[in-house]
């Protein structure tokens, strides 16, 4: 009960007037009620999607595994090791790994290290905008148990409380070779049909949401942003 109150207080405190409901008058004189939160976001819950039938799913998984599109969102220190990955020395492209500038087109989200609360909010949005199936790789100690910033007031400790993670890589920072190894491991997981993070997220949606909301005090967006 107390936490409920607390939450409400928070929402009052961090209310963004731009996101309030308002009435606008259309050019033809009609009054239209606009709810920006509804307008900008879709609020349907994520759904569990069943895999296709066996053989087809196997083929699709193979295609998915060999064509990993990575969201280029440098969330932490680890983003410094992403350029070497995509440049001559390590050239991840030859392993079917490509960088994409937008979450919608990406299938792999590399959380490259620590997530501050402010970034977590964006990371969740980005993750939710990625389409099923999607995979998450956690780089470095920070995603496993807080790493260097385990006692910081502004960084999360465990990534798996906020989104399902497929693979973790040890290191601070993991070298590009280790990240490539993570891709190989992820490929194996996908081909075996075990990489089902998106469905897991949909199944345990309430639990994830509760964790996210506990951390993000100014939750001024709908629960699910696509």
């Amino acid at each position: 009960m107390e936490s409920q109150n607390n939450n409400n207080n928070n929402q009052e405190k961090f209310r963004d007037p731009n996101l309030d409901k308002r009435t606008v008058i259309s050019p033809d004189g009609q009054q239209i009620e606009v709810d920006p939160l509804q307008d900008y976001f879709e609020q349907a819950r994520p759904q569990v999607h069943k895999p296709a039938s066996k053989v087809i799913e196997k083929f699709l998984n193979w295609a998915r595994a060999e064509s990993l599109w990575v969201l280029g969102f440098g969330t932490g220190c680890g983003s410094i090791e992403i350029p070497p990955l995509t440049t001559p020395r390590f050239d991840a492209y030859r392993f079917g790994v490509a960088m994409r500038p937008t979450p919608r087109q990406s299938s792999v989200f590399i959380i490259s290290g620590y997530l501050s609360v402010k970034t977590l909010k964006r990371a969740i949005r980005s993750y939710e905008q990625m389409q099923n199936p999607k995979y998450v790789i956690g780089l470095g100690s920070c995603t496993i148990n807080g790493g260097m910033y385990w006692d910081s007031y502004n960084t999360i400790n465990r990534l798996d409380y906020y989104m399902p993670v497929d693979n973790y890589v040890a290191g601070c920072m993991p070298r590009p070779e280790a990240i490539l190894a993570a891709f190989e491991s992820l490929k194996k997981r996908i081909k075996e049909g075990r990489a089902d993070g998106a469905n897991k997220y949909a199944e345990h949606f309430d639990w994830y949401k509760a964790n996210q909301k506990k951390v993000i005090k100014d939750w001024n967006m709908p629960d699910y942003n696509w």
Partner: protein
Amino acid sequence: MQTSNLINWQPDRSKFPDQLADGSFKVDLSSGKYVKIWHGPNHPGVTGNMSLELTLCGDEVMDAKTHVGYLHRGFEKLFERRKFIQCFPTVIRMCVAEPDYNEYNYAAAIEELSGIKIPEAAKWLRMLALEMSRLQTLLRIVPGQGGTTGLGIGVQWGVYLRDLILDRFEELTGGRIYHMYMLPGGVRGLLPDGFRKRMEENLKEIDDFVQRIDRVQYQNAVFKKRTKGIAVIPPEWVDQYGITGPNARAAGFNRDVRKDYPYLNYDQLDFEVNTDNFSDIYNRSRLRWRDLQQTVDLIRQIMDKIPDKGDFKAKTPNVLHWKIEKGETYIRSESSRGEYGYYVVSDGSEYPRRINLRGPSYIHAVSLLERLLKGANIADIGAIMVSLQSCPPEIER
């Protein structure tokens, strides 16, 4: 007259809002003429993890607000809980792209406050690491300027060469990105066998790269078109904003911490400070290109002078409970972005009272960037940010 006007097409700016003396525009958001958008943090055109709140009129930015804090880890709070030696691995993370200046500044501050003199070999090795660090940053940022305007090929070469330097770092320090090499009291190792040879091979490759990037990037008509005369920093801003480093030097200011406040053994090196007389994107980038050449030269000079033997760490008290006498100091060094400073206060206990970082990006990527973006084209934002070499983690720490 009429015809030349036709060819040198001048856009009709009468519909644009008035620009005030301080560069800002009179924007009436309710008019519906303007679009307000967020640029970043998840955006390939933004350096690092920060975002810009832009008010656009067409392609042009009317108002820009920077939003940082996406990488805030509360370092300066964490130092309260960490002993002096424990801060050593922590300070480095303040800037991901160029961590060694943190190591040096922190170590130098501790040494100054506790009165430790470091061995000669350590000084040279520190200089080597610092210049290598500058080199690896410049290898990213010099072609990176092309990258922001769509010339991706130089980035490929540059990051490859940077990787070679990181390999050398790995050999020397045991770390690839976070080297954790300049321990308070000295460094953590001498040059490994064969290091000089491999380094010289890499430097030769970089020499070649310097020429090639000149031909591909700086003698490139489109690149010039995109960068010349864009985002100019007038000389009078330099002191008004506290601009340092290449951004100030391109505007004609001969300011380089290495020359003005010689630290380590920089006074024993032979180099001239690079300056230019007009600080637009092209010249700033070009200045960095000259810095790159200079850095290669400095590394060669340093390599000639590094002793192969000798002590590399001074005796320090037991690090598990190292107390530093009460006092405060400000240590600065010249990073590739500009003046990098540490303000360190000790209260005489085992824990530092306050360690505050003065990163050049704090100025360049907040107040200066906001000013430069006003009136800029939205397509140039990435180029402007890279030309200021903004590094968000050192803003928010």
